[in-house]
């Protein structure tokens, strides 16, 4: 078990290194010279070659690529993510302001996806072919096909513009005004959660169906156990492994959804930052957002892997 965890950790570190390398190199390949962009952003009219060199030196862009990477990554470890090209403000400040917002929405969506999705899927499997099964399965199939940004717009139309029950868009910290904050996040959280809810329900259903056919379940029935005990104690534990994996992957879905949904609901989180900074070619921001999202996903995958080994003692690292 310990070796399994250690090996998983080593793999995660390797992937994190590759992720950082990818983010670093991708941004160096961006079209346009960042120095020129910086100079024009700071509205310098006549730029001499010396001035360019000076700024290059200032940003460390005159060093070799490996040295630049080294400078950047040591900076990242110190919490220094560079400065914005557009307004020169430290990237980390903006990130610290936006990260809690996306975290707030994302964690809620993640929890809702598990709390609603998994029981729905299990219920479907237990009552296979019944009206509930058909209803939930149809809903789940639709749930994984809805374009989230479009769903957001429809919700805005129905609940904010037509019925006027909820505010159209925006974000308020729950510590500032809890009631307003909650009203504002209902629609975006629902949009973020819908895909994972549907995914969890589908996965829980199909893996429960698989388990229910197994011999040990028949044995449990023939022992005369009650259905509740069979489902809760025998089937659920064995059927949940793929569901755990899929829930872990939900983190990626939610973060990807945030890129679109924060745009729809005008929420100043990480996803919106990704879009605006890509548009502005403000590469330190793009780097930071990509890096942080990737790190969260790598860590959630690591947690899934470790919990896998913990839930199922048969799992061995190959």
């Amino acid at each position: 078990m310990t070796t399994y965890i250690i090996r998983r950790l080593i793999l995660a570190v390797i992937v994190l290194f590759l992720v950082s390398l990818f983010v670093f190199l991708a941004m160096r390949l961006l079209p346009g010279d960042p120095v020129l962009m910086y100079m024009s952003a700071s509205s310098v009219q006549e730029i001499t070659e010396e001035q360019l060199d000076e700024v290059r030196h200032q940003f460390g862009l005159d060093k070799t690529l490996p040295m630049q990477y080294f400078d950047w990554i040591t900076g990242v470890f110190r919490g220094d993510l560079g400065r914005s090209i557009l307004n020169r403000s430290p990237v980390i400040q903006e990130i610290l302001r936006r990260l809690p917002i996306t975290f707030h929405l994302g964690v809620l969506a993640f929890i809702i996806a598990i709390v609603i999705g998994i029981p729905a899927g299990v219920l479907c499997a237990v009552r296979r072919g019944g009206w509930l099964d058909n209803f939930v399965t149809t809903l789940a199939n639709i749930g994984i096909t809805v374009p989230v940004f479009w769903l957001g717009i429809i919700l805005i139309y129905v609940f904010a513009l037509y019925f006027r029950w909820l505010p159209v868009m925006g974000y308020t910290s729950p510590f500032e005004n809890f009631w307003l904050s909650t009203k504002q996040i209902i629609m975006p959280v629902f949009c973020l959660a819908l895909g994972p809810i549907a995914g969890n329900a589908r996965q829980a259903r199909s893996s429960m169906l698989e388990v229910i056919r197994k011999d040990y379940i028949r044995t449990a029935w023939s022992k005369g156990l009650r259905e509740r005990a069979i489902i809760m104690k025998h089937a659920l534990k064995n059927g949940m492994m793929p569901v755990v994996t899929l829930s872990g992957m939900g983190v990626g879905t939610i973060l990807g959804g945030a890129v679109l949904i924060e745009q729809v609901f005008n929420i100043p989180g990480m996803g919106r930052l990704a879009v605006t900074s890509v548009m502005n070619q403000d590469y330190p921001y793009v780097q930071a957002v990509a890096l942080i999202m990737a790190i969260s996903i790598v860590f959630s995958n690591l947690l899934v892997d470790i919990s896998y080994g913990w839930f199922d003692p048969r799992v061995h690292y190959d």
Partner: protein
Amino acid sequence: MSEEANLGPATIENVRHAKELRLFFRVFLNRGVVVFGMVIILLFIIAAIFAPWLAPYNPDKIDMNNSLLQPGKAHWLGTDSLGRDTFSRTIYGTRVSMLIGLVVVVLSAIVGMALGLIAGYFGGWTRAVVMRLIDTLMAFPMILLALLIASLLGGGMNNVVMALAFAMVPIYARLMCGQVMSVKENDYILAGRSMGASHIRIMFRHLAPNCFPPLIVMMTMMLGTTILAEAGLSFLGIGVQAPTPTWGNMVNDGRQYLLTNPVLSFAPGLAIMLMVYAFNMVGDGLRDALDPQLRGVI
């Protein structure tokens, strides 16, 4: 089977094939939603190919005198802020979604399968390296990865295709690698090796065809995912550029007029959903039909 093989086994083979095929279609077309999906896809294909004949108006024709009309007799789904016919634009939007979906799926499947094939067949270090690269790419939300690459390459149809294909490659590579690793344990692979077949021959003649069924299901499903991702990109304004009508940018354009003309956003979004749903249902049907257990072969 070689040319001079006698007729007997070949005919038996054919009969078996025909029987398999009949079983395949029986399971495949057994469920109503699958048939529904097939019909929807067929309709979309017709709409994409015959758009110029089906669309009542030129999708790009600006007519400021008739801007923001409500749905009516002349314009079934009304007109947008530039007076362009929403129904015509939605029909033309099918082209972009279909084309990008198909090209991206084929491109990424070819590259991904080749990577997975090599990684799974040779194993060891090759596999370790390829798998770590896949892990790296999969650490980014797909839309973010596509967004990054699209911004590296710039807008335009070709670049969106490249960005999306790049973002999808790891999914196929991982699936293919797993498939190859289980299929290569079969005795016929060992037999092939001991008869002196080359690595290339084994990979393409023996391994790849036997790894196919789940990949076909995956490709069908990924058509839907790709179409969703493309719509997301063009919703963000990074995909195919205006004035080319895409469902994604139509949804975005319509947002401003949500209160007065909700149909501008609703119609293209519904089209996206219908298309993705259809591909997913057909993918589900294919999975059932390709599963020997469900088909009743075993």
